Each structure stands twice: as structure tokens, then as C-alpha cells.
């Protein structure tokens, strides 16, 4: 099953590279226009893959750490924080000055939100799962309110920019941002993969993990940090794209089993492919109009997730 996924990756990426607004066409790389088109598509496909992989792995890790099937990359307020950061950058006109300003703003605010959530959830030297979830929800709504305030006060262009970014968009133009985001996601992925067996044990509860020779506190902090890093990098690259982090790990558990040693790489590959396919649909389904990719992930992912919930085949027993 796993190797099937690996084989799927070049097929999906190659296919997506061929697809354009005008249909399946290989642009002539000898012309300047052809090269430009190829470059744009390549950026987009790679960005989609990296973002999808980051979101899916982050979702899988958070679901294990929070022992909650509904956990997803945005659950700890990361999305609203990043959204607020991006909106501030756009409103105050930094976005026009540097291509890196928006991703950087989103990234910093995402991390700040997580740090706040974590600090709020920590009491008497312990971090409770409910504390994390609750403070995540509350900080998330505070950030959302501030975001709405900014939207209400924003100029027309600013409004358009913020909204477009919030809906999710894989077409960036900064190769530097893509390289940086990819590196962060890759490093964070390696760390959580290295923690795979600890994540397995931690789903039995922190006490059992302790008995099995694992330090629950260390694994939780590392895991939360890496998951947030991946999410923040993905959000900075592409805006808010929902559902990938929620449904991909669920679907993959049914295919490769719940063990994280296999689940995490499988989620990365499948999440990447899923987002690339969704983006290909977003680019071509209503051509020449381009639909935000977040709309497609929700439209494809929502019904699928409902079906999964009804089947309960994803195996969350509680």
C-alpha cells in the first residue's frame, strides 16, 4: 500500500504539470512563454505538494498528541493567528514592498498564537489536553474578531487581497519563500517521524507512555512545536486551506494502519498528492476562471469526511 502511494507521486505531479487552463498541453520549453508557463506550473505543483504534505502530517501528529479525532492543523488557533498576521501585513502595505513580508507575518503570528495557547493551557507544571483545546478555541475566536475588525476597516484592494489569501492560493512568486517553507516542513517532518513510536505510545495516555519509557512532556512539546511549524509554514506559503489535515490522516489510517512509523510518511505523500489534484481541479474545472483551492478541498473533502464518519471505518472508537 505504501509503495503504491510512492509510485503515485510522480504520476500525480507529472499530470498536474501538464494540466493548464486550456487543457492538457505541454508548453514548448524552447519559447520564452513556454518556459514561463512551465516555471509557474512547477512552482505551483511543488508548493501544493509541500503544503499538502505539511498540513496532513501536522494533522496526524495533532490527532495523536491531543488524542482527539477532530484535531486538525488549525485547532490550536494557528489559522486565525496566521490570518491576522497576513491581514496586518496587507493592511499596512508591507505586502507590496516585499514578497516575503506576508508569509513572514503569517508565520510569526501563527507561532505567537501557539505560544500563547500553550502558556495558557499550562497549569502547575502540567499541560492538559482540554486546556490546550479550550484556550485554542478562545484565542482563535479573539484573533478572528480582530481579523474581522481589520476587514471592516480595510480599503477595497486590501479587502480583496486579504480575502483571496484567506481562501487559499498556491500561486506564489517567491522561490525563496518556497525553499524556506519546504525546508522547515521537511525538517519538522523528520523530527516527528523520528518520534513515531513515541506518538504511538502516547495515544495510550501520558502515564502509559511514561511506563513504556517515554517522556510524555518532551514528546508533546516537540510534537506540538513541529506540527505548528509545519502548519505555519504551509499557511504562510498558501493561505488557509482547510480539510487536508483533517481528512488525509483519517483516510490513511484505514489504508496503512494507525502506526505512525508508516502513517506519517504516507500522510505526507497522500496529503501532497491530494492538494495537487485539488489545485489541478481548481485551475481547470472553471477555466478561465480560477477557483480558490480551499473551496475544492472542502467540496471534495467534506462529503468524503461525512461518509467516513458514518462508516466509522477510520477506527476512532471513542
Amino acid at each position, binding site marked *: 500500500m505504501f509503495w503504491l502511494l510512492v509510485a503515485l507521486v510522480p504520476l500525480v505531479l507529472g499530470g498536474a504539470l501538464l494540466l493548464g487552463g486550456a487543457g492538457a498541453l505541454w508548453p514548448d520549453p524552447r519559447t520564452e512563454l513556454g518556459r514561463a508557463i512551465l516555471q509557474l506550473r512547477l512552482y505551483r505543483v511543488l508548493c501544493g505538494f509541500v503544503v499538502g504534505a505539511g498540513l496532513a502530517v501536522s494533522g496526524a501528529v495533532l490527532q495523536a498528541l491531543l488524542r482527539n479525532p477532530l484535531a486538525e492543523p488549525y485547532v490550536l488557533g494557528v489559522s486565525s493567528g496566521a490570518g491576522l498576521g497576513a491581514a496586518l501585513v496587507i493592511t499596512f502595505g508591507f505586502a507590496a514592498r516585499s514578497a516575503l513580508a506576508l508569509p513572514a507575518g503569517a508565520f510569526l503570528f501563527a507561532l505567537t498564537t501557539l505560544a500563547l495557547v500553550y502558556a495558557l493551557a499550562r497549569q502547575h507544571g502540567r499541560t492538559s489536553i482540554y486546556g490546550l483545546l479550550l484556550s485554542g478555541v478562545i484565542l482563535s475566536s479573539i484573533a478572528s474578531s480582530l481579523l474581522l475588525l481589520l476587514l471592516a476597516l480595510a480599503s477595497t484592494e486590501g479587502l480583496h487581497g486579504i480575502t483571496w489569501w484567506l481562501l487559499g492560493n498556491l500561486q506564489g512568486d517567491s522561490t525563496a519563500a518556497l525553499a524556506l517553507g519546504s525546508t522547515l516542513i521537511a525538517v519538522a517532518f523528520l523530527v516527528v517521524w*523520528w518520534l513515531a513510536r513515541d506518538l504511538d505510545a502516547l495515544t495510550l495516555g501520558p*502515564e502509559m507512555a*511514561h511506563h513504556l*519509557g517515554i517522556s510524555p512532556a518532551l514528546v508533546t512539546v516537540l510534537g506540538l512545536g513541529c506540527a505548528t511549524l509545519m502548519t505555519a509554514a504551509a499557511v504562510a506559503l498558501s493561505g488557509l486551506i482547510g480539510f487536508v489535515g483533517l481528512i488525509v490522516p483519517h483516510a490513511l489510517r484505514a489504508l496503512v494502519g494507525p*502506526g505512525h512509523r508508516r502513517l506519517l510518511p504516507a500522510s505526507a505523500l497522500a496529503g501532497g498528492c491530494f492538494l495537487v489534484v485539488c489545485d489541478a481541479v481548481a485551475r481547470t474545472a472553471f477555466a478561465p476562471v480560477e477557483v480558490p483551492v480551499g473551496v475544492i478541498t472542502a467540496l471534495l473533502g467534506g462529503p468524503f469526511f461525512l461518509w467516513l464518519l458514518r462508516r466509522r471505518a*477510520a477506527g476512532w*472508537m471513542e
Partner: protein
Amino acid sequence: MNAIELQHISAAYRESDVLRDVTLAVAEGEWLALLGPNGAGKSTVLRVITGLLPARAGVALLGGRDVRAIRGAERARLVAVVPQELSTPLPFTVGELVTLGRSSAHGRLARPGAADRRAIERALAYTDLLELRERPFAELSGGEKQRAAIALALAQETRILLLDEPTAHLDLNHQWEILQLLDRLNRECSLTIVMTSHDLNLAAEFCSRLALFDHGALVALGTPAEVLREERLREVYHCDVRVRHESGRAPEVRPERRPQPAAGGRAKKVHVLSGGGSGAELLRLLVLTGHHTSCGPLNMGDSDAQAAAALEVRAALEKPFSPLGAGALDAARQLAAAAEALVLAEVPFGSGNVALLALAEEALARGARVLVNTRNLEQRDFTPQRVALPRLKALLERGARAWQHADEVLQALEKS
């Protein structure tokens, strides 16, 4: 060397003390049960042993080494824990779950090696789970889940196994199944076992030693016969218990049903006139509801007399198989004189016991309440001149209350 040693351990969650100066050593190959009421500190002892809760004072030694100085992966090879209820939100199969027991034994990202697989097979074999290894853990029954939890701990291949109430959620046959499994592990592998338990009898049956805790202190430590003493258990559990010590058998603890005071009313003094087993159930109910009960006259050996003796009810007694004589009647009259109510049971009347009616008539005459059983009234008069029936009817006419079921007696006593 001792497998586990606790030296003057005090431990606390936040502010409240849960263990106070506990000193306890567990020898290798021993099976020790930690007993005591809820909140006595049993589970906390387990937490201190595994280093989950650092002791506020004192030292916990595992194989002679301070548990706080032992690194996680190494500790997981010394001591394994079976929690009260193992659960995971993920759809692990039994095999995958048991593999988690090897979490810190094999290399990161490596598949389990030959040694790991051997440990897993052995754990599954001991717990009789080889055939269930592909089944999702969540679909197992309570007993199977507990076996899987034990298999997970066995896969760690430790010399010490700690269990937190291993039989708490199980029905009788699964309780025995689990304890017999532990017994086998204890004997065949000389595994050191420490478990908390609420079941004093199961603990006495299987464990070599018991440790009794109360309010965070160790109050008794020794063999089951030494620890399970009525006085001590009464103090610790605030409950009346009887302990039966029979040679060659584990002591057996049985809580005594505590008499409930009559609901909504004060306890009454009641005298029961019966015989031939007609009053046994009534006597039991009166005693249970806390009424001050007496009875008689009864012939010795009569089943009502036996019931009275077992219930520690005062009874006026006559020689076996004899008519009720003046001595027994006088003794009964004295008991009845103190009673606020006299209850006449469904007793057949003959020349030997017709004197019972005299006691009832006297009581009614002095204003006490009299309750007369009226079931099969017409068929119970075996006196030569059939004198009993008219006297019974006269009692009812003069204000005695009729009853048929014992509940009616209890209700009537409550109302008065």
C-alpha cells in the same frame, strides 16, 4: 536483593498528603497486594514505584537503585505497569498494541527485531491472545482487553509487574482467569507482582503478602491471615466484617449487612409469637430494620428458635417437643411486657401452644398494639375444642390489627 524498596516515602498531589512515611520492601518473586479503601494511597504507591510521582520525602529503590536516577528506556525494562483501564483512540490491533511494549527496546524507525518478536510472541502466548492478534483492540471484551494490557506489559520483559486493580471491571470468571494467569507468571517466571485491589478475598487467595493502607499510611503488612483481622478491617473500612479463618484455606472476609434504622420512625420494641418457622422471616426483617426484637415462648430446636439464636434475638425457650410450660410462658410474658407491639405469626394452634393467645390477649388488654396474622386463619386451629379460632377473632374485634405479609407489619410499626 529486594525487587522494590520504599523507604520512608511521603508523597503528595498539590497540597494534600496522599502517602505518609511508608516503608515497604517487596522481595523478588513475591506477589504483594496493596489493599485499603478508596483514597488510602494504594495507587499512589504504584506511581511512586514507577517514578511517575516523585516522592516528597524518602527514596524508592528498584533493584537497589533510586528510581529517579534510572532513565526512561531502562526503567521500562525493569518495571511494567498494567493500568486500570487501557484505552487508545487509535484502531490498533491486539498485535500492534502489544508491540508498543517494545517501544523503547528497539531502535527508532526500525522494525521490531528478532528479540522483540520473541518477546511479543511469548506475551501473546502467555495471555492466550495468539488467535486474537489481528483483531482490533477496541472490539475485545473486557476480559480480553485486560489480557491484552497484561500482554503489553509482558512484552516489556521486566522482572517486576505492577497492576492497578486488575480485576475491577471484570465479571467473576474473568477475575479468576486474570488472577490465575498472574499466578502462573508468578510461579513459572518468578515475576514479582504488586497489585492494588479492592477484593480482599481474591487477594487473600492468591497473594503471598498483603499491605493494608489507610489515609496514606501503611497500617498492616504480612500474610493474609495476619493482615485480615476483624478489628483492623472494621477500623479501616468503617464497616462490620466477619473474617473466617480455616486452616488450610485463605481467610474469607464477609461484610455484615448493617441494620438500617426503621425508615422515618424510631425503632420499636417488638415481641413475636411464632413457632415452627412461621416467624423466621419476620424476625430477620425486624432485626434488619433495627427494631428491638424479642420472641417466644419457643421450643428449643424449633426453626424459629434457631433463627432467633442466629439473629441474636432474645427468646423465651421451652424444652424440645414439649407443651409450653409455666416457666417459659413467664419468661415470655416478661419479654412481651416491655414490648410496644406484639406480632402473632402464621402459627398453627394446638393444645401445646394455645397459651400464646393468652400473651396476645394480655398485651391488648394493657393497651399495646397487637398484630394478628390472618392468613389461613380457619385452617390453623387444631385445639381439641377448637377454642383458638374464636379467641383469634375476638382479638381482631377488640382492635388487634390483621396482617398477611411481613411488610404490613413493618409499615404498621412505622406509622404507630
